[in-house]
């Protein structure tokens, strides 16, 4: 039980984290509507409007300490509302976005969020006609959700029925729906009574104007998505990694797919007001892409994505409430981008640096193997070939001095590189220098040299006999594959060549000698 709990640690943390956020929000909601004049954000907005001329002169100003204290202590109701709402949205969109990314549908969220425009516009016009007031947010969002959902279905089903690729279906449904939206927007502008500023907020986003009611909606949607992601974690993961296998095992893959994408549509809808329809995709994708650089397991990736999404949202809102001139949506996205760049560079699993170090270590190992193998070849060529390949003559190998130039002759390395590898071999205690240009192998060196020479020749024999590789070519082919082949494969080859090897532990080189 304890082991189980420990294995599921990320989940517990996630649940805990979101529980804290949920608690924070619900406290605000239960406390009732806020007092808008009490808040740092709305205050700065009011002062912005009154002091418009002063602002234009200095568009960018550092906040004074009073304000920093005010924001950081979360003293104001609205600050708390905006912070908790956006952070929760960041966490949940990071988690959901991981599935979207792995489903290879990253850009679907962009098509969906653009396709909300006609829905918003239709709802706006309808509301104008019915009640004369077009900015009832919930109805607008419902309208947007409907067209967003239609676009999502179009994106998924167009490739299936028409044979065009999925990227084309994304772009097609985006332009079609957005085109309708643009036409309807120009209709709205011609309506005599309409004031389309409510719609503008949804296109470009305005986190600072979020109210308790808006955050209630964000809260509800986020809880739904979070619960769905936790309950269907196994199913969604299976769908992402191998949808064919899911289908074969009796999972309703298509329905699950539509369900997952519906969650994406919902997140896109509630994200409209916070970051705007042009940037909501970044909130879904960037944390997930960044998380992939840190972990391999699905659970960890979702956890890290949620963490990055939440942190970006938090920092974004913090910045934009300290510097009210900065657009919150853009800051959130840029913070996420910063996380992405850091992850790309320093990520422990697939980051550039860690991959570079791994590659360098592997290169060093391979170079050392090749150096020692060539040393063995030289030793063997200096003597009568059978003399040193038998087990009991190992001691003799350790006493024979080797001329470094002869080894260099067998490798296609530059002088400088050879000297570097030689130096490393000395410091790693594989060889011992006798004088300038001659060295002997140490005990470890002999063992490693024999091991690699043997493995190399077994491979050569195998390729000549079973893969029809020409003996003059085989050396280079083996150099490419021997380092990546697993030890079990080598053992199998040993079994094949038992007769050839017999008492000789290391077979003779099966090809003419190669020198520079």
């Amino acid at each position, binding site marked *: 039980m304890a082991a189980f709990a420990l294995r599921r640690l990320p989940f517990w943390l996630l649940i805990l984290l979101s529980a804290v956020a949920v608690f924070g929000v619900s406290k605000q909601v239960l406390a009732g509507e806020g007092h808008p004049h009490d808040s740092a954000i709305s205050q700065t907005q009011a002062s912005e409007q009154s002091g418009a001329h002063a602002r234009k002169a200095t*568009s960018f100003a550092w906040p004074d300490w009073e304000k920093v204290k005010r924001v950081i202590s979360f003293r104001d109701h609205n600050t708390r509302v905006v912070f908790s709402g956006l952070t929760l949205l960041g966490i949940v969109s990071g988690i959901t976005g991981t599935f979207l990314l792995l489903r290879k549908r*990253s850009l679907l969220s962009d098509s969906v969020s653009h396709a909300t425009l006609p829905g918003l516009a239709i709802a706006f016009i309808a509301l104008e006609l019915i009640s004369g007031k077009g900015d009832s947010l919930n109805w607008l969002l419902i309208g947007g959700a409907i067209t967003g959902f239609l676009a999502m279905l179009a994106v998924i089903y167009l490739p299936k029925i028409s044979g065009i690729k999925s*990227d084309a279906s994304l772009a097609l449904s985006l332009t079609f729906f957005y085109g*309708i939206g*643009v036409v309807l927007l120009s209709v709205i502008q011609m309506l005599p009574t309409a004031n389309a500023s409510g719609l503008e907020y949804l296109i470009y986003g305005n986190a600072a104007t979020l109210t308790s009611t808006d955050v209630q909606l964000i809260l509800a949607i986020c809880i739904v998505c979070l619960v769905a992601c936790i309950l269907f974690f196994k199913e969604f993961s299976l769908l992402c990694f191998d949808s064919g296998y899911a289908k074969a095992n009796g999972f309703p893959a298509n329905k699950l797919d539509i369900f997952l994408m519906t969650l994406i549509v919902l997140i896109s809808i509630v994200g409209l007001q916070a970051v705007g329809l*042009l*940037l909501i995709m970044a909130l879904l994708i960037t944390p997930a892409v960044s998380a*992939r650089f840190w972990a391999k397991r699905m659970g960890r990736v979702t956890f890290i994505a949620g963490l990055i999404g939440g942190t970006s949202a938090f920092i974004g809102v913090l910045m934009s409430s300290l510097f009210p*001139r900065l657009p919150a949506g853009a800051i959130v996205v840029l913070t996420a981008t910063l996380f992405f760049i850091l992850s790309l560079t320093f990520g422990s699993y697939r980051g550039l640096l860690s991959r570079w170090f791994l590659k360098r270590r592997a290169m060093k190992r391979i170079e050392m193997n090749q150096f020692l193998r060539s040393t063995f070849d030289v030793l063997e060529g200096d003597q009568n070939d059978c003399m040193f390949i038998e087990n009991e003559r190992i001691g003799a190998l350790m006493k024979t001095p080797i001329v470094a130039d002869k080894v260099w002759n067998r490798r296609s390395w530059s002088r400088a590189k050879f000297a570097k590898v030689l130096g490393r071999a000395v410091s790693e205690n594989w060889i011992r220098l006798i004088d300038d240009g001659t060295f002997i192998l140490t005990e470890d060196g002999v063992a490693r040299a024999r091991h690699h020479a043997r493995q190399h020749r077994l491979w050569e024999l195998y390729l000549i006999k079973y893969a029809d590789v020409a003996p003059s070519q085989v050396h280079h082919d083996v150099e490419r594959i021997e380092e990546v082949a697993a030890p079990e494969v080598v053992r199998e080859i040993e079994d094949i060549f038992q007769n050839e090897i017999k008492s000789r532990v290391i077979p003779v080189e099966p090809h003419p000698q190669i020198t520079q």
Partner: protein
Amino acid sequence: MEWTSIDTWIVITGAMVAMACSIPGVFLLLSKQSMFGHGIVHSVLPGIIIAFLITHSRDLTAVLIGATIAAVLTGILTQWVHRLGQVEEGASLGVVFTSLFALGLLLIRVAVDTVHIDPDCVLFGLLETSVVDAVPFGEFPRVTRDASITLAINLLLAGVFFKELRIATFDPGLAKALGFRPALINYGIMITTAVTAVLAFESVGSILVIAMMIAPAATAFLLTNRLGIMLVFSLVSACLTALTGHVFSITVPASVFNAILGSEMIQSTNIAGGMSVMAGVWFLLALAFSPQKGLFAKWWNLRKLGKEPDNPFEQTPAAH
């Protein structure tokens, strides 16, 4: 609605832009990069702002250069993230273009606050205004001239490099083996797309550019299997889209909404929007009625197959 010379010019300009965009669009569609057009339309924003900050004027050339650099950068960064970071191509495009766009929004607020640059203007250039600025005074619209030049250059490029483009889009592996450089050709497509898009959307609006980069090509894709014919079809489809789109936008929404409202206040609506809607409609028509790949043809063929008397797949009762 009365058809004036302005309408004619709008259709001509729209058709020129549409054709110019549809040529790189065909190759984007075939190399599965259709969303690239959408990406660069957004990611040029910081380029435009920075160009503006450097020159301190709304000089068109500087803006175009800045936008083009940003667009090309988008392509390079996307490829770079895709290859170095092993990120899926769509996701890497998404990360790159949203970041650049957010940077642009931030720059607008922080740096150019005192001057009016509206993201609206950048994203929704208006075809009608840019034509109306010239035609009534007897001038040849600058937009039309630019679009024609772009179209001519794109046609020329597609003609000269037809062989290379064909092999690189259909079989990059073979292209590489034969000594072509598919990566280089791909960058060429990206740069052409970027320049075309920047030249076009500054005057006609981003939505039309994105639509024309994909819809005519997709329509043509449903009608033929040959690349040369696909290019011709996409040009024809682009022209038809421009014409019907304009007719649509000056008639349909106006009559619908005027009927609902019982008044005459709605007139001609956004033309770029109308054209992109019609582009989608043409695609749907092709999807329904294409002779080979259309849904109707498929249904018909299935039916015919079922009715054939000597259908080998039909189960016949075993004779004992």
